[in-house]
């Protein structure tokens, strides 16, 4: 009850604040110095550490001062939208790459095609294709990948060996056998894999591994009742039916690392941030008993999600040239390596991966392999909501309320309703 009230107060408050900041910065640039101030918004952990990279940038570009503002992830989306409405966006910004379609729909992002064409540092061919593609809308390139986040398999080597497997599964077939064997070894009360029932990423990755698309090509209709997605959902649901996975919300697991250490589950689908966490938090006696592996696919190594964050320049930017110089600086190999050391974030291009810090990390290897097979999600602003609906439908199937057939049909209807506005806009654009 109070939270909503807080939100309602915060929204105009934030607009006010953003407006205030604009005034403030107008004031701070006005003195007769010829230094230009570049406004840069970054989120979460990256926002905390990126300012450590700024002195070097300012040394190389004496005319530019970077004003880094850190936003918490939980408030970032609201803040960006209110800043857009208040015309108070910064010059350059970190943006989750699934948000790019949304800000493209707002026409808030400056295309970077020609900047990249002339750049000696940002080389499109060096980037992992799936990640790069999340930044394009039609022909326009709207962001430069900063770091990537894909999902791979974290697994317990010792428990897998005890179940009779000396290597991680590479295909669904092998995976099923491994899951069944691990579960048999673990016995009742323990499981083979943890798939939090309120997280859409695992099912999404399985869906992306299929040949068929999740939405129609124009992004106007859902394609979830296609055989392709149904196969993914079937497989996902089977893991619960067979008792390989517990039907649990993420919040019901008190501590993922401890439970992984106790062998409550042996497989876990997660992202790069967990490399450091597992290194740090696994119980000492199991410190070397875990490893990462690329996600198994229907037949052989499969695709996974292409998440992460990009650097974008807003159309309203006052200093687009300086902004581009900052993006180039942050994209250069040496800064990417330093950035990895500071945050543990994985670079979106291949060159930094040759650095010993990354090429020597056994846990990162699976990610490098997986990144070559990362696939973007459909690029519509409504995507996050659609992924949410997908997970709710899956949760209902797992709970036994409806079957896969019904679920996918209902899901398509829901998705078509969500995309109604988009279809209307596309039809209008065509008729003009």
């Amino acid at each position, binding site marked *: *009850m*109070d*939270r*909503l009230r807080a*939100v309602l107060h915060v929204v105009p408050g934030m607009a006010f604040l953003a407006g205030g900041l604009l005034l403030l910065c107008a004031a701070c640039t006005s003195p007769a110095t010829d230094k230009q101030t570049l406004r840069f918004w970054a989120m979460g952990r990256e926002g905390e550490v990126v300012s450590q990279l700024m002195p070097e940038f300012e040394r190389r570009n004496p005319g530019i001062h970077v004003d880094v503002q850190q936003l918490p992830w939980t408030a970032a989306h*609201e803040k960006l*939208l209110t800043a*857009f*409405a208040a015309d108070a966006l910064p010059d350059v910004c970190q943006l989750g790459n699934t948000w790019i379609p*949304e800000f493209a*729909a*707002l*026409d*808030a992002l400056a295309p970077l095609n020609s900047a990249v064409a002339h750049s000696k540092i940002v080389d499109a061919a060096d980037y992992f294709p799936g990640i790069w593609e999340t930044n394009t809308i039609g022909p326009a390139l709207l962001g430069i990948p900063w770091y990537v986040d894909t999902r791979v398999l974290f697994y317990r080597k010792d428990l897998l060996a005890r179940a009779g497997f000396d290597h991680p599964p590479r295909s669904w077939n092998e995976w099923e056998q491994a899951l069944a064997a691990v579960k048999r070894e673990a016995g009742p009360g323990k499981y083979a894999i943890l798939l939090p*029932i*309120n997280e859409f990423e695992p099912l999404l990755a399985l869906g992306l591994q299929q040949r068929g698309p999740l939405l129609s090509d124009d992004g106007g209709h859902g394609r979830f009742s296609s055989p392709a997605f149904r196969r993914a959902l079937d497989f996902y649901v089977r893991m619960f039916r067979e008792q390989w996975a517990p*039907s*649990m*919300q993420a*919040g*019901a697991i*008190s501590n993922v690392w401890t439970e992984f250490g106790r062998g409550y589950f042996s497989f876990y689908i997660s992202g790069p941030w967990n490399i450091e966490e597992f290194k740090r938090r696994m119980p000492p006696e199991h410190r070397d008993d875990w490893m990462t592996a690329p996600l198994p696919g229907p037949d052989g190594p499969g695709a996974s999600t292409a998440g992460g964050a990009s650097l974008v320049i807003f159309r309203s930017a006052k200093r687009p040239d300086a902004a581009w110089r900052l993006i180039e600086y942050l994209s250069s190999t040496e800064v990417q390596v330093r950035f990895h050391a500071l945050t543990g974030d994985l670079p979106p291009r291949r060159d930094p991966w040759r650095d010993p810090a990354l090429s020597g990390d056994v846990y990162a290897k699976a990610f490098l392999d997986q990144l070559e097979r990362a696939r973007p999600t459909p690029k519509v*602003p*409504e995507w996050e*909501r659609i992924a949410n609906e997908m997970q*709710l439908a899956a*949760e*209902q199937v797992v*709970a036994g*309320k409806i079957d896969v057939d019904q679920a996918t049909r209902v899901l398509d209807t829901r998705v078509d309703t969500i995309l109604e*506005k*988009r279809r*209307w*806009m596309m039809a209008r654009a065509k008729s003009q």
Partner: protein
Amino acid sequence: MRLPAAAWAFVAPATLVVGVFFVLPVLAGFALSVTDFDIYSLASLRNLRFVGIDNYLDLLGTPLFWQALGNTLYFVAVGVPLSIGLSLGCALLLHSRLARFQSFFRTALFAPVVTTLVAVAVVWRYLFQTRYGMVNHALAQAGIDPIDWLGDPHYAMPTIILLAVWKNFGYNMVILLANLQTIPDDIYAAARIDGASPLQQLWRITLPILQPTLILVGILTTAGYFQLFAEPYVLTQGGPLRSTVSVLYFMYEEGFKWWNFGTASTAAVLLFLLIFAVTRGLARLSGREAAA
């Protein structure tokens, strides 16, 4: 009655503030509810459509809205009587001449009201954890199988009700206690001389005197409980299987998560009408009773 200019000058500041920060937003919210304002409309007003009552019709055809409404009514129907009953019970106990350490208990029972819900929710999540939680541990001592309090759709709402009741009953308790303390002792003395049992004293003296306060507390609590939001937000995020989505939570998701302000405003207007009707009904019902 005509107000002189001076009077207008005196009320102007307050009127202005209420107008700008209350009346205008309410009108704007109502106006939004007949449009399909969303992220596209934020880009350009050309993308804004006037949809009349379509939002209302769509919403009434949305299963999740009905589920949210059902969840909210469940919460109100169980939570309000439970909450007021507990408040009344505790107020009577605290007021009893037999009670020791009254001021200590008064403070202790009021404490949940002033603690931060987010902090409380963290502790509750631990208490109600399925495998390691203290609640299930205690149940196990009594031979009861562990219950998945927050993960089972049948138990999630009762857990939320428990949290809300525990968190809120102290407030009403203090109001009722204050009222109890105004009842003169000689009424009870007279009743005792006439041979009234303690139960009769409660039924014939205490409750009738408390009635206006109880009605007030009831209306305030009902209106507040209809706006259930923070508890599911911090404890379950609407899950499992949407069993803890309240109307306000539904509205929050539509508006602030998916930026469909049209639909969110529609839900807000409907919730307002519902609360208005129910509290109005309560007030009228009690008014008729008082007259009878």
